[in-house]
């Protein structure tokens, strides 16, 4: 196995256009679903596949769909979350750029299963060039009878519209996204009610990520059972990972879940190892919001097992020694990376992106940024480190939406695993005042012995 499911045809010239896509088996899944399967059968296949949401939380897609309020007499909506703004994440962009029809196909089948006649793709405004690509794909699908009224002569009708955001990370959070789609500020809503009951315009709504929805077509083609044979345990199938940072081959890779993290980082097929022959220092494996892990813990769990690219394995050890698969934004740091500087940088991001509705998030992100700025610029005190931990703890779990947690976790985990580096900053203000201090001086002091496996890490 080890095969690809989403990106199988990505290298075929012209695959972005309808004709080439169709010639390579495109839209067969739509024909199969609409002509041969009942609404319930499509849902059953998605359930069987074990597919979990690829937007970050990993919530089972079939289960989410089953919550949709089908008793309501209001129209139902499917909203595709293409906001992709989590630092380190650029997989949805890649998918939409190269395989727009794979997404459209998934949207048609999913809408059929959900009883939806109007679907919106909410895409971040900065991806303006993708808007044209998606609009063109939608036009092509319509010309060929796969969108519009009475698709393929069945009783099912569907329109898909692209809707651009305008620069706000928070609009990736599903209820903020719905507010934004209604033409308002992106302030997350208090849940419950959940979108499945009161979503867009107060109507039952499903929000799913681009990659999640693009996977539905292949699931219908191969069958849910066959899909679930890929992967490992409850992490079925494949996952797109966007890899960046200090590696030889940044890019988007489709991996079968269960691939050892070590293989992903060092194999020439994927990241190709650390650039400039440096040591691996740390990884944030699931987008900037998930806990950072030092090299030894990202490669092996505390039980001494190899860490795998799956929801369960990455979370093994919870937040004490584990992290999360999140959105698959895999950020790699080499020995020169300054963890304090990076944490300060990310906290600036969360402070900037907080919508400001809840005080713990609005004020807490600002405080953390200020304290981290002090430490990074050689003005910190030892007590600042525990102060940061306290502020992070007071944000976590005390906010309307998970952005608060997303801001707290990077700080808490950086201190948990790299406390000595924070202390070093406080003890050596004259060294860290030089903005290019990286961690060169720290290396000598902190670096552990060579692992002996030929792989260099801290």
């Amino acid at each position: 196995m080890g095969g690809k499911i989403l990106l199988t045809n990505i290298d075929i010239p012209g695959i972005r256009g309808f004709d080439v896509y169709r010639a390579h088996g495109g839209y067969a899944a739509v024909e199969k679903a609409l002509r041969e399967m009942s609404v319930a059968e499509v849902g059953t296949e998605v359930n069987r596949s074990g597919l979990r949401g690829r937007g970050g939380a990993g919530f089972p897609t079939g289960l989410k769909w089953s919550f949709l309020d089908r008793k309501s007499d209001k129209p139902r909506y499917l909203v595709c979350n293409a906001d992709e703004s989590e630092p380190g994440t650029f997989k949805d962009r890649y998918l939409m750029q190269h395989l727009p029809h794979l997404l459209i196909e998934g949207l048609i089948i999913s809408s059929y299963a959900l009883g939806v006649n109007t679907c919106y793709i909410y895409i971040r405004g900065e991806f303006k060039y993708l808007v044209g690509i998606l609009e063109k794909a939608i036009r092509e699908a319509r010309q060929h009878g796969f969108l519009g009224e009475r698709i393929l002569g069945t009783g099912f009708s569907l329109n898909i519209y692209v809707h651009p955001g305008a620069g706000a990370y928070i609009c990736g959070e599903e209820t903020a996204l719905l507010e934004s789609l209604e033409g308002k500020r992106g302030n997350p809503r208090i849940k419950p009610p959940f979108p499945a009951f009161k979503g867009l315009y107060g109507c039952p709504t499903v929000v799913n990520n681009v990659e999640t929805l693009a996977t539905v077509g292949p699931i219908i083609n191969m069958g849910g059972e066959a899909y679930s044979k890929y992967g490992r345990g409850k992490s079925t199938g494949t996952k797109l990972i966007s890899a960046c940072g200090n590696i030889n081959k940044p890019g988007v890779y489709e991996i079968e879940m269960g691939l050892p993290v070590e293989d992903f980082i060092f194999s020439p097929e994927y990241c190709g190892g650390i650039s400039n022959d440096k040591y691996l220092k740390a990884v944030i494996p699931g987008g900037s919001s998930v806990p950072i892990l030092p090299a030894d813990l990202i490669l092996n769990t505390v039980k001494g097992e190899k860490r795998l690219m799956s929801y369960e394995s990455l979370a093994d050890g919870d937040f004490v020694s584990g992290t999360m698969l999140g959105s698959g934004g895999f950020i790699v740091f080499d020995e020169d990376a300054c963890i304090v500087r990076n944490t300060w940088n990310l906290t600036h991001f969360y402070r900037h992106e907080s919508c400001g509705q809840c005080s713990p998030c609005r004020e807490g992100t600002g405080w953390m940024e200020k304290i981290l700025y002090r430490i990074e610029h050689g003005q910190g005190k030892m007590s600042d480190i525990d102060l940061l931990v306290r502020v992070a703890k007071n944000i976590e779990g005390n906010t309307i939406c998970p952005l608060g947690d997303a801001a707290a976790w990077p700080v808490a985990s950086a201190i948990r695993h790299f406390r000595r580096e924070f202390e070093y900053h406080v003890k050596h203000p004259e060294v860290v005042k030089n903005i290019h201090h990286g961690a060169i001086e720290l290396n000598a002091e902190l670096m552990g012995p060579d692992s002996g496996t030929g792989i260099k890490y801290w």
Partner: protein
Amino acid sequence: MGQNNHIHHHLFEKQNKPVKFSGSTLEVVHQLIKRYPEGQQKSALLPVLHIAQEELGGYLSVDIMDYVASLLNIQPIEVYEVATFYSMFYLDKMGTYVIEVCRTGPCAISGGEQILAHLQDVLEIKPGETTHDGLFTLKEVECLGSCGTGPVMQVNTEYYEKLTPGKVDKLLEDLREYANQPKPGDSTWVEKFC
């Protein structure tokens, strides 16, 4: 986001461009409104503001926001609220080229900080400022979703990736040359929706 609050002084500013879409743009706007259910025309606000900013002078003056409110049949305050929330909408006059450098982690560790420093040096302005000739506005922005090809910046709506100081110099040179000619690159929002 959220913190922009420079609305008031534009109340007294005169636009040199007429605050009115052309007939063909107006047609596109009406098509956009039809994408949303009846009575939900406010949903078209973000796409219409993008078009307005692009076609009516590069930023959203109060006149423009009021015009958009009238098109969508909503209160002007509903437009101000939104325009001040999203980072892609500008409330002040911008340079011909708005250079937005990604400052977030992944870009920062692949050389983004040096790119920003270089731009500050050669343009002799700080983030948030515009050059005296009105050509360039420099801004820092958060992750542009292009972290694998960092450092990244966006000039107007185009992405420039894997930047080096040398590449930046060459680009600035090209842009200076282009400034008197039709703009390079991307099609407009209206074209995207057609």
